[in-house]
């Protein structure tokens, strides 16, 4: 399947893009993370959440949607 992944904040700086299309076979959020960690090793160091079809999901959730997003916490005020 093809995923459209959006990157926010510091994550977009690591991936060097705000969004991209990735091929993903199947699996949970954790499987997707493994794929992303291979592509972007520094992501391992960052805390973030995954959203699927505009909803925050846990890492155990099966990826079925095509719209994904990675959201780090923001600190500034």
């Amino acid at each position, binding site marked *: 399947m093809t995923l459209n992944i959006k990157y926010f904040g510091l994550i977009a700086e690591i991936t060097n893009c705000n969004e991209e299309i990735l091929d993903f076979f199947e699996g949970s959020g954790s499987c997707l993370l493994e794929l992303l960690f291979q592509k972007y*090793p520094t992501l391992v160091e960052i*805390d973030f959440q995954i959203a699927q079809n505009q909803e925050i999901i846990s890492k155990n959730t099966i990826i079925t949607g095509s719209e994904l997003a990675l959201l780090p*916490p*923001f600190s*500034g*005020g």
Partner: protein
Amino acid sequence: MGRYDRHIILKEVGQEGQLKLSGAKVLVVGAGGLGCPILQYLTAAGIGTLGIIDFDIVEVSNLHRQILFKTSDIGINKALAAQKQLLDLNPTISIEAYPERLTSKNALQLCSVYDVIVDGTDNFTTRYLINDAVIKTGKPMVYGAIFKFEGQLSVFNYQNGPSYRCLFPKPPKKGFIPNCNEVGVLGVLTGIIGTMMANEVIKIILKFSDVLSGVLLCYDSRTTKMSKLKINRNQSEIDHIINQTELQEIQENTQCEPLIDEITELNNLILSQIEFIDVREKHEKPKITSLNYKQVPLSQIKEHLDIINSNKKIVVFCQSGSRSKKAVELLKDCGINNAVSFKGGVMNMITSLKNIKNET
């Protein structure tokens, strides 16, 4: 015409709504980039009692975004400076200034006397403290936070909605998520997000139906794109806080971090005798052409210790100065104790190199 006439003629507000605003008590934690516009609009809107808590003082580098303050306020405590300016804007309301830090000692007592708590902080210690205190006192929390050109906004702990911990259960690892002082921020962005936060406060007080609860709004000022993402309540996170007998403060403040040696200038060093290490990923720019350095991304540093010459003094740099601190910590863990982090990252490094050239 009265001060609130343009509010009162809105049928959705009216005299009744304006009375709700004047009867409301709102605590704003942090009078910074977000806090300033929040305070200005809430003062103008006639919120009956406003509390402002901030231990910090006004600095010249605050003025590009903290537009409540004047140049003459530099050096004055932010809560006190804000109180003075706001009373000039609306002397009919009550403004309490707390020129101190929000801590586990005062958070519950303060939150208990206000109806709505607003998070305008710039650090995770205070943000998690506010989150936990509003859960324990049953108050809604209006949340906003920013990173460079992007902002996040939500309302937590509102009518059985999710809390900040339902979104981010644990604080991030130390030193990885930089704040505005470290990476910069577009001044107007704090105005946009802060004003939207003030709007959520007003919606809560006026009991509007569509308060931004259970939703994280993400805004990018470069593209003017907004995304809304659904957040679900995680009851176990909330129960965990309710069952704690006392508030816990996470140790995220820089004062509590292991002391990392940092330098801000290169002019006292003999550059040829320094081992410079760039811990950014290899695609990250700008590169420095006028300096010999090795590229060892933070993610691979432990695997590549052999290429680092630890007989020389080591200066580590990255994009902002956060990852380089982490790298120095990792090197210390591996027994390499002569490394320092270059504060402010690559751009400061380039400036410092230029300064040296100009002097010679």
